[in-house]
């Protein structure tokens, strides 16, 4: 039987710690793969916004910074363990996987030196289905309807900005077979970044659904990084050494079971309760966790705490993957702005409410009321506005409230008007109004999220190869 494959995660989202990959590589000389996840549902719309300003953009620059720190460690690993390379698999390609790979090649040479020459970067694309959606006719409206609301695509077709299908493990496996060191993909289902190296390493067949379901569970557990090593856990205050919290590692065995753990020298904690919390994170029906690779059931899972920050997860059951693939599209949905002021002193809540009324009256007078409008009094239960959680903490005495106003409208000028009406409260508002150093709120474009399904036959993944050379020229080897 094949030895376990040890897969770490060093980026849960775009904005995670840039040094995490280099630290994980230094802490774990026996790691096989580092996965890095940059693409949440809303990330593509942020990339689209950046690409609108700069045609060369379209992938998270954080990844390139992370690779600058990781490059010397990859070189060291190649020297010390030439037969056991550390591979990196990431969806950092975003909307521009090729451009991301070129930037990665440059930074490897710059920070890893000539030893990086000859390293191979696999590029997985073909996830961009925007032309397909844009050119779709009315006859496709039902097939491409919004997965949740059921609205036909026609309602947003002329406003589409991005449309990317979630690719699965298959094109990543194809890339691994080409002997790559780094794989950069566009939109790929998060767990597939983990599933692909498991299938490849253990030589599983694509019909071995229980094993693939097990690897999918492992991928689901580590894809949010430190959320499975103590981050956001209910018992967070008792988690030790949070400043040095370790990033997670899944040791996936040949039968598809795994042990979730973390580097020995790090802070944080991996326990049965924390692993269970992360198993339930952002899932729907636990009997049908859908991915492009398998439909996994969590209902037969066993979670066993082996102590010393090692938790075994076994018993996953899998059945065939859904016949269609999921598409995550974004469309232009107008403009929004949000700003805050802090109100300190007696009757802070009442004063905050009065401030909101002042802005509302001024916008009404100007005929510029944003179609969507929200007033939140943070500090008095405003973040989750349930009567049972209201905190009347300023009923009789000194307190403080963060007043947050936000507005959205398809008319930019209306949102601009709102953004201009907040800061005048610094002088006409209550005594004790403060916290305005950020200045006038920024107006930015808003993108709506359009999930839909597409036939597998209409999706053609593309696998390319870039060899790191001083010139950085891309050599396409396979397609």
């Amino acid at each position: 039987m094949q030895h376990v494959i040890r897969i770490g995660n060093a980026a849960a989202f775009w904005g995670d710690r840039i040094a995490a990959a280099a630290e994980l590589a230094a802490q774990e000389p026996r790691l096989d793969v580092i996965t890095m996840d940059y693409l949440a549902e809303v990330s593509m719309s942020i990339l689209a916004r950046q690409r609108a300003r700069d045609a060369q953009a379209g992938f998270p620059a954080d990844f390139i910074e992370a690779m600058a720190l990781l490059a010397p460690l990859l070189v060291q690993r190649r020297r010390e363990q030439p037969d056991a390379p550390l591979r990196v698999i990431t969806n950092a390609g975003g909307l521009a996987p090729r451009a991301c790979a070129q930037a990665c090649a440059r930074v490897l040479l710059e920070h890893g030196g000539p030893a990086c020459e000859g390293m191979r970067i696999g590029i997985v694309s073909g996830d961009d289905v925007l032309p397909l959606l844009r050119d779709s006719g009315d006859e496709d409206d039902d097939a491409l309807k919004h997965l949740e609301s059921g609205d036909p695509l026609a309602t947003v077709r002329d406003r589409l900005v991005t449309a990317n299908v979630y690719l699965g493990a298959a094109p990543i496996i194809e890339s691994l077979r080409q002997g790559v060191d780094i794989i950069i993909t566009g939109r790929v289902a998060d767990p597939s970044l983990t599933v692909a190296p498991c299938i490849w390493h253990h030589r599983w067949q694509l019909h071995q659904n229980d094993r693939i379901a097990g690897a999918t569970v492992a991928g689901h557990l580590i894809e949010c990084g430190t959320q499975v090593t103590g981050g956001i856990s209910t018992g967070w205050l008792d988690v030790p050494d949070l400043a040095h919290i370790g990033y997670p590692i899944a040791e996936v065995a040949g039968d598809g079971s795994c042990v979730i753990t973390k580097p020995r020298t790090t802070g944080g904690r991996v326990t049965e309760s924390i692993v269970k919390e992360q198993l339930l994170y952002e899932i729907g029906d636990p009997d049908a966790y859908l991915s492009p690779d398998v439909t996994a059931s969590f209902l037969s899972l066993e979670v066993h705490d082996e102590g010393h920050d090692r938790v075994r997860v076994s018993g996953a059951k899998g059945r065939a993957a859904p016949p269609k693939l999921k598409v995550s599209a974004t469309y232009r949905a107008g403009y929004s702005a949000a700003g805050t002021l802090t109100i300190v002193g007696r009757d802070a809540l009442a004063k905050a409410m009065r401030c909101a009324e002042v802005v509302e009256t001024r916008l009404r007078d100007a005929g510029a009321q944003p179609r969507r409008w929200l007033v939140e009094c943070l500090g008095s239960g405003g973040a989750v506005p349930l009567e049972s959680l209201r905190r009347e903490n300023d009923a009789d005495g000194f307190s403080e409230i963060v007043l947050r106003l936000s507005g959205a409208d398809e008319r930019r000028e209306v949102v601009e008007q709102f953004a201009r009406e907040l800061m005048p409260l610094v002088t006409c508002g209550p005594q004790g109004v403060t916290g305005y150093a950020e200045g006038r709120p920024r107006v930015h474009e808003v993108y709506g999220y359009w999930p839909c399904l597409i036939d597998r036959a209409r999706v053609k993944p593309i696998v390319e190869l870039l060899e790191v050379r001083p010139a950085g020229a891309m050599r396409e080897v396979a397609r």
Partner: protein
Amino acid sequence: MIIPLYQLAHARSGDKGASANVGVIARNAVAYDLLRDRLTAEAVQMFFAPLPVNRVDRYELPNLLALNFVLVGVLAGGASLSLRTDAQGKALGQALLEMMIDVPDELLACVGRSVHQPTGAAL
């Protein structure tokens, strides 16, 4: 006796498109049996009603002593459109843990632990 859910369970929440889910994990089997009975989809929908929430789907995971609640439509348009501070429903788990649960007195001793006791190795 009426006690807050956090004495019986721990939780985690996040977004799923325009919906959010809250996973609730009972601290032990006695608490799970009680919550399966008391923490119904209707009770959770009533608790979150002002947000508002269109529908609550409940899934049971007896193997993990857990219940999963999907709060359909609670994020009003989804994370990228929502104006809320908590656009992604990350705080909904903490909110639900404040829900008051009626626990028969004879079960009190075996369902949870006191509020201020350090969690220690339990979490």
